[in-house]
């Protein structure tokens, strides 16, 4: 009796498993299109978004199993629609494979898209969708994103990897902080409502002959030396190198900066080695006082024993003379003044001044924060820069 009961139980479980298995259809790797990067463009005339995706297509070999991604090849596939969501849905219609965004690490916004649409509308799909990682890099490209995605770097074959190498893997040594979906999206919800995005350009490889093929035309290098700034999702302008240095010096993160030697600008340059900063934001007599105390350690720009430009050789470089240090101090102050002036002039709080004031004062400073134009006229900036080397 007992034995029969156990057999019946096992049979029931087996039947249950068969029914469940039949209702579950797994998606094979070769049925997916693994997307590495997305480029978003906007057409003002048709008011349509177009999405270009860089995909890896694993190939199925004769045995029926999937080959590695490296054996497949990179493809650019496009879709379009009234919104980014619809455009991405149309991708499916383009190639039949299920788009898989789990490995997407970069979103490139075309210049037109960044300037003519609100960043909130464009990025809404990516922010709300669970498949896009919060650390996904977001950049603005010069020209169309779809064109940028067809360019080839001299180092990396895949555009998405090339841009990640430039922005992320360089570990802040590209003298620019990389911008992510998380930081950008947060700016839509905080008090500052300002954000900045890396601005990417492509420099073509020089060709000695006039007969240039399309492939050669797309060969070159990606560069970054500017930042696009946004206020409440709307494009405001670009930051130049000096302003980016100011932005880096103002923030808490240590991002590499290079300064000229005023005495011998053609032979020497200095790099940032140490940084400590203390930002004090206060509201006094109805005015906003920002006091930045910045202490920088600098070293002459050299390569180390293994040939790396950074980290700088600490002990073997001679100390920097006073005149040069004063020159660096002037440059630092110039950078900081320039970036703050840009923020005031454009009324774009990409420095996060309002966020820190709210953190310090809470609801008590709401009136000042919501003063609109008046807020920017009340700012007093004071800096105390010390350079050592």
């Amino acid at each position, binding site marked *: 009796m007992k034995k029969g009961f156990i057999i019946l139980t096992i049979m029931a479980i087996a039947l249950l498993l068969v029914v469940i298995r039949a209702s579950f259809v797994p998606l094979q790797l070769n049925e997916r299109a693994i997307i590495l990067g997305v480029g978003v463009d906007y057409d003002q005339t048709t008011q349509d978004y177009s999405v270009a995706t860089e995909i890896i297509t694993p190939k199925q070999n004769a045995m029926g199993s999937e080959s590695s991604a490296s054996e497949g090849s990179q493809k650019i596939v496009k879709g379009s629609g009234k919104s980014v969501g619809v455009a991405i849905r149309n991708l499916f219609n383009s190639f039949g494979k299920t788009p898989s965004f789990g490995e997407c690490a970069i979103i490139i916004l075309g210049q037109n898209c960044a300037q003519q649409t609100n960043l909130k509308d464009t990025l809404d799909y990516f922010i709300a969708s669970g498949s896009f990682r*919060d650390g996904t890099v977001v950049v603005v490209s010069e020209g169309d994103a779809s064109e940028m995605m067809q360019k080839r770097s001299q180092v990396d074959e895949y555009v998405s990897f090339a841009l990640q190498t430039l922005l992320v893997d360089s570990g802040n040594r590209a003298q620019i902080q990389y911008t992510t979906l998380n930081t950008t999206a947060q700016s839509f919800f905080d008090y500052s409502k300002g954000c900045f995005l890396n601005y990417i350009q492509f420099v073509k490889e020089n060709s000695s002959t006039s007969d240039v093929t399309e492939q050669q035309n797309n060969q070159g290098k990606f560069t970054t030396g500017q930042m696009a700034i946004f206020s409440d999702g709307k494009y405001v302008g670009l930051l130049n190198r000096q302003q980016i240095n100011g932005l880096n010096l103002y923030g808490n993160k240590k991002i590499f900066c290079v300064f000229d030697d005023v005495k011998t600008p053609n032979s020497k340059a200095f790099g940032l080695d140490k940084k400590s900063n203390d930002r004090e934001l206060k509201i006094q007599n109805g005015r906003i006082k920002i006091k930045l105390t910045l202490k920088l350690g600098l070293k002459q720009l050299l390569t180390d024993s293994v040939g790396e430009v950074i980290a700088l050789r600490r002990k073997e470089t001679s100390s920097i003379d006073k005149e040069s240090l004063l020159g660096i101090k002037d440059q630092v102050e110039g950078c900081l003044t320039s970036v703050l002036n840009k923020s005031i002039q454009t009324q774009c709080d990409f420095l996060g001044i309002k966020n820190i004031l709210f953190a310090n004062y809470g609801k008590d400073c709401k009136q000042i924060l919501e003063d609109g134009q008046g807020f920017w006229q009340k700012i007093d900036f004071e800096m105390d820069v010390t350079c050592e080397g």
Partner: protein
Amino acid sequence: MIQNRIKNSQLALLLCIIVPAGKLLSLPHTAFMEGGRDTWLGMAIAFAIELFAVGMVLIGLKNNNDDLTLKQILQNVIGKFLTSVLLILYAISFFAKFIFVLTDLKILYGEVFVLKSDWSFFTLTGLVVAWFLLSKGFNLIARLGQILFVPIMICLIAISIFSLNDCTFYKLLPIANDGIPKVLKSSLFMGFAFGDGAILLLLSGDVKNPDKKTGQVFLGFVVGAIATLFLCVIYIALFGELAYLGDIAIARISQFNFNTSAVGRLDWLFISGWAIAVYLLLFVYAYCFVKCVDMALFNKVDHTPRLKSRGFWVYVAFALLSVFLPLFVDVKKLVLDYFARGFVRYIDIFLTTVVAIFYPLCVKISNAKNPKLKNGLGKIHVKIMEV
């Protein structure tokens, strides 16, 4: 020999890893909708209350001279019928928590490993492992926790430390700017995910020498609580006002464990390791459920629902409910609506916290009612029954 009996040190290590397990899944983001940036403060208050409750349970366990089970103690205080009702309510609470955490675990795997899995298969896999472990006794779960403690904690520490660089801690400020009631509201909301004191209550009678080294168990809980709170602070510091988005907090935090494509998906490694803690928590919930139903429906005094005879059928019922209920009902919404926001939360808080706080008193009353057990005869009596 009672195979279910565990050491204080094993219990301490187990608590240390299961306390964060259920609270770092969807809790931070759902609680953020209630408490905003002060969610961490609400969590700290909930932990403080729970710490008190755990402390009281440990005092009770220390005074439980004759290793009486929760059922025996409650029967001596409130009678047979009310004890059975309470135990059934405990079982429902543990089942709700089990199914809620299991749903979150499935989402965690989906988000981190970018895969879709079938609910039935996913649940069955866990249930088969749980069946194996429970059939061998609770001490196997405790031993497993002891063995895996170091790798699980390393993964948890790595997840938090590698994300620190991206944190902006001023996003936690200003503290309690929206008022203390909002903070308390978030504490109350989180109540359903707490109540680890109830697990200790259920283990009463299962701990070896409960009168010795109970400090270890308390320390284990405190370390688990600090780790949870730290991760919650990191979560808000990373995402600010966006903390309400997403599903699983630890999956979002771990995304910042890799900043370079050269390093690869470090988060996969850490999450795989840490997810074992979630499984251990699920096994503990399953054990507690089986034990509650077993004690409520069957009169036999036993420490060990080792999935033999009646215990097996209780487990089968539990497994069938776990597999099929979520196919027809949105269990997560149901638990959030009733256990986190609805009236059921007050019953749950009563079961997990109030009973825990009054546990030493119950033990005292029970000891007073059973003077025979006090002089050691009880132990012989229980052992004879086990034989």
